[in-house]
């Protein structure tokens, strides 16, 4: 009896195995060579059927914003250029920035055949204003006194006060923006907070074809009338007929999937996972062909944030001492195997911003000196990183200054010691003591299971400071508590990534002292490091009255960057990088270092503009 049942079990197993010979495709019913498979940013969604982006907290990076939604302008961080998508040109301001006129692109239609007109834009703004709790509602209510259309393709905004950067609300600078709602759908909706916008009506070049009720994948199909979208008009036909956004799981699975050519674009990988992928799939590429491979033009950079309301971090000398006690080349080589671009200023060293801000400031940096005359700038950093790479046997080509940054602060523990002893610190038996006699202990807060580079930076810096003689402990925290501590100021030193890029203008406004929230209260406006500086306030007061694109605004930004160097509120280390691996097996001509036509951001709304540039390789 038992033996028979075991036999039956075996037969069942064998038949399962037999039938699985045909399993291997992820998509049993779609033509693989016409499909682009993209990694889903948010992972598995608990509620995959909600496409109402305008509710706060809905995750749009799993394909919704890339394929279905569209906005007026997109600012590409790689090139620094603005794409006029639904708007046909830049905004026109009048009346001392109290009136903004936008001309819209004509010939654009929603996927259900209705035309896109100024009515949709006007409706979006008035509707959101009328329903508090929706995204952008409070912002629009704050600034907009009237919005109306002048004709079917011109919208006029009358503002309550002078807002030179009002158009930023409609520009996708980092990740997303206020996308435009279809008036003919939402005007019938009584309670938008409960409305799921399913099936969604698309303004982008794709339709939602199918999605997984368990929240793992979304399948989009190209619209037959793709010419009637902003993408179609600007760049032509998006090449993949189908786009599948899918979440495979942890890094190991993404690597294995791409190695099997079942995943074309990955959001991010750890350096080790990339190493495995690189070795198992010759078609995989990130940005550079050789070392250091990674895409290093992301829009944030990593800092050792310090709560400036807590002693001894409220002392500029202490902050500079901690900066000089760190050997950045050691951090980069032993913490990141040389794969990092150093980012000394309070703005990201991206391809476009290096040219716009770093190079003009280089002379000033070379001549910058601390109060005692010590000049901390070290331009040899990129070359030393290249030396390390060569010793490790990596092939390297290209300009070290473009790839690894133009320099950082010197490794000067002696100068650091001078700064500390000047302020009453004592070094006894190789260990540092605070002026009050107690041993100096630092706890660095770092992320526990996400943003791995931040954690590695924390450990690497902890190593440096320990060598210097400070007792350092790294405490890793889960996402929820990590961000709560940040906002409440419940940290001493934290490995955060609070440095802006092309969104500098908005970002820095929150650092004005009138928005400062002391430790213990939630810092709603940013400035979690609680930096208070009257010179900064004066500069910000000027900046808020200027248009972000004006040359005067840019020179004020430079002044702010210089102030940041002098005060060093939080040393900035390396720019955020991504191993957003591309598989060139079925598709090619993704943006890379040889062809950097756009930022390789598959998870941002602007991804749609990359699609017309892709080319099929012809493999089936």
């Amino acid at each position, binding site marked *: 009896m038992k033996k028979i049942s075991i036999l039956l079990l075996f037969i069942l197993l064998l038949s*399962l195995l037999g039938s*699985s010979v045909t*399993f291997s495709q*992820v*998509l*049993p*019913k*779609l033509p693989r060579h016409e499909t682009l498979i993209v990694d889903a940013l948010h992972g*598995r969604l*608990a*509620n995959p059927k*909600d496409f109402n982006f305008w509710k*706060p*907290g*809905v995750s749009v*990076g799993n394909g919704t914003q890339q394929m279905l939604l569209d906005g007026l302008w997109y600012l590409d961080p790689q090139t620094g250029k603005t794409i006029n998508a639904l708007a046909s040109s830049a905004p026109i301001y009048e009346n001392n920035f109290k009136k903004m006129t936008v001309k819209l692109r004509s010939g654009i239609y929603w996927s259900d055949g209705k035309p896109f007109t100024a009515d949709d834009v006007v409706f979006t703004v008035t509707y959101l204003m009328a329903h508090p*709790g929706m*995204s952008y509602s*409070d*912002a629009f209510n704050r*600034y907009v006194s009237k919005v109306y259309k002048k004709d079917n393709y011109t919208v006029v905004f009358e503002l309550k006060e002078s807002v030179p950067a009002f158009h930023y609300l409609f520009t996708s600078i*980092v*990740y*997303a*923006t*206020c996308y435009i709602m279809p008036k003919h759908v939402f005007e019938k909706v009584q309670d938008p*907070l*409960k409305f799921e916008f399913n099936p969604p009506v698309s303004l982008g070049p794709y339709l939602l074809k*199918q999605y*997984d*009720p*368990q*929240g*793992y*994948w979304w*399948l989009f199909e190209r619209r037959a009338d793709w010419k009637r979208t902003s993408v179609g008009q600007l760049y032509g036909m998006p090449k993949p007929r189908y786009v*599948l956004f899918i979440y*495979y*799981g*942890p890094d*190991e*699975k993404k690597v*294995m*999937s791409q*190695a*099997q050519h079942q995943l074309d674009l990955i959001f991010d990988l750890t350096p080790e996972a990339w190493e495995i992928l690189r070795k198992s799939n010759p078609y995989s590429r990130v940005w550079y062909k050789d070392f250091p491979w990674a895409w290093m033009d992301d829009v944030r950079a990593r800092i050792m944030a310090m709560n400036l309301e807590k002693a001894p971090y409220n002392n500029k000398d202490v902050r500079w001492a901690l900066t000089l006690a760190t050997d950045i080349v050691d951090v980069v080589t032993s913490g990141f195997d040389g794969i990092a671009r150093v980012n000394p200023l309070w703005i990201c060293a991206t391809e476009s911003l290096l040219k716009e801000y770093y190079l003009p400031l280089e002379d000033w940096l070379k001549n910058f000196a601390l109060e005692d005359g010590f000049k901390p700038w070290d331009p040899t950093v990129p070359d030393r990183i290249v030396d390390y790479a060569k010793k490790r046997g990596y092939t390297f080509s290209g300009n070290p200054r473009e790839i690894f940054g133009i320099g950082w602060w010197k490794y000067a523990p002696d100068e650091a010691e001078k700064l500390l002893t000047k302020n009453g610190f004592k070094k006894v038996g190789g260990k540092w003591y605070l002026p009050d006699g107690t041993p100096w202990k630092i706890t660095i807060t770092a992320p526990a299971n996400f943003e791995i580079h931040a954690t590695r930076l924390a450990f690497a810096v902890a190593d440096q400071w320990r060598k210097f003689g400070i007792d350092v402990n790294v405490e890793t925290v889960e996402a*929820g*508590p990590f*961000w*709560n*501590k940040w*906002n409440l100021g*419940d940290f001493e030193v934290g490995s955060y990534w609070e440095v802006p890029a092309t969104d500098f203008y*908005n970002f820095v*406004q*929150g650092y004005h002292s009138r928005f400062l929230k002391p430790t213990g209260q*939630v810092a*709603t*406006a*940013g400035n979690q490091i609680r930096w208070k500086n009257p010179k900064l306030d004066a500069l910000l007061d000027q900046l808020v009255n200027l248009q972000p694109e004006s040359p005067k605004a840019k020179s004020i930004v430079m002044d702010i960057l210089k102030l940041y160097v002098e005060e060093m509120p939080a040393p900035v280390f390396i720019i955020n990088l991504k191993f957003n691996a591309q598989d060139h097996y079925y598709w090619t001509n993704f943006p890379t270092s040889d062809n950097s036509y756009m930022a390789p951001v598959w998870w941002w709304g602007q991804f749609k503009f990359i699609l017309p540039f892709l080319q099929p390789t012809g493999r089936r």
Partner: protein
Amino acid sequence: MNFLKRYIIPRLIQYFIVIFIGITVVFLVPRLTPLDPVVTVLNRMTAYGAQYLDPSAIEKLKETMMELYGLKGNVLEQYLKFWGRLFKGDFGPSLSIFPTPVISIIMNSLPWTAGLLITVALLSWIIGNILGGLAGYYGDRNWAKILGLLAMTIYPIPYYIMALVLLILFAYVFPLFPMTGGYSVGLTPSFSLEFILNVLKHAFLPALSLILIGIGWWFLSMRSLTSTIVSDDYVVYAQIMGIPSRRILFQYVMRNALLPQITNLALQIGGIFSGSLITETVFSYPGLGQMLYMAINNGDYNLIMGIAVFSIVGIATAALLIDLLYPLFDPRVRYR
């Protein structure tokens, strides 16, 4: 009648008290942590570059959201409101995926979790106990010793590693099974044979990983139980009497040894509502474990409570049923 009054009713009261205490603890603990669902959503918005020109706009949004989420009022008020809603069968909206009702999120993933975990529990219980009983009874045979060694080696392997190794071996190195998901992309769920086979194929590796560890546990505990019974008088007597070994094993020894095992099985089945987080993560298999984990990380009080209530009621009910039915299995037990 007497029995009913003296035993069953107090036992039922105990049942409700246990559920009450459990739910209260799970209600309080998240609110004692620094996790705040409103702040979490705000963080998510600002982390993804919500472009508010004036930072005071975010301030107002926070107020609006606290109203919306029903988080105004102190803990006691929220507690009473919670019980009020619960009696109406309403778990409220999820705070991290507002306003999707918690109950629909749970019902979406529950069939997958229940299907996988109940099947796994039953299969590993049956196989593990049979093998364990055999090994415990025929303790000296070589195959018993080898099985024992195998169980002892497999059981302590950390589950994550076991799952990962199985995945790499059978979905990558030898691509026999799918690497991800509950069913293939593009298929629509239906009751067709094609779909069912597809689901089974996808469930094979996750189930296998759980069953291997499960069998290890049931095997070892059953074996130790049987080996103590084997030396009991009545067993020796039966052997001397010439009753065939197989009959002694199955009808005498195992029936006695199974008693604690039944308790454990019931509790295990009652506990499936927390899902199996690691299985779901490694195999990208849909289930409640990930929902719960996500709820915890986002401070989503309502979703945590929803899943926890299911879990608590499930286990408590299983324990209650066992207690009430135990005299049926073991006639030796009498309650005072």
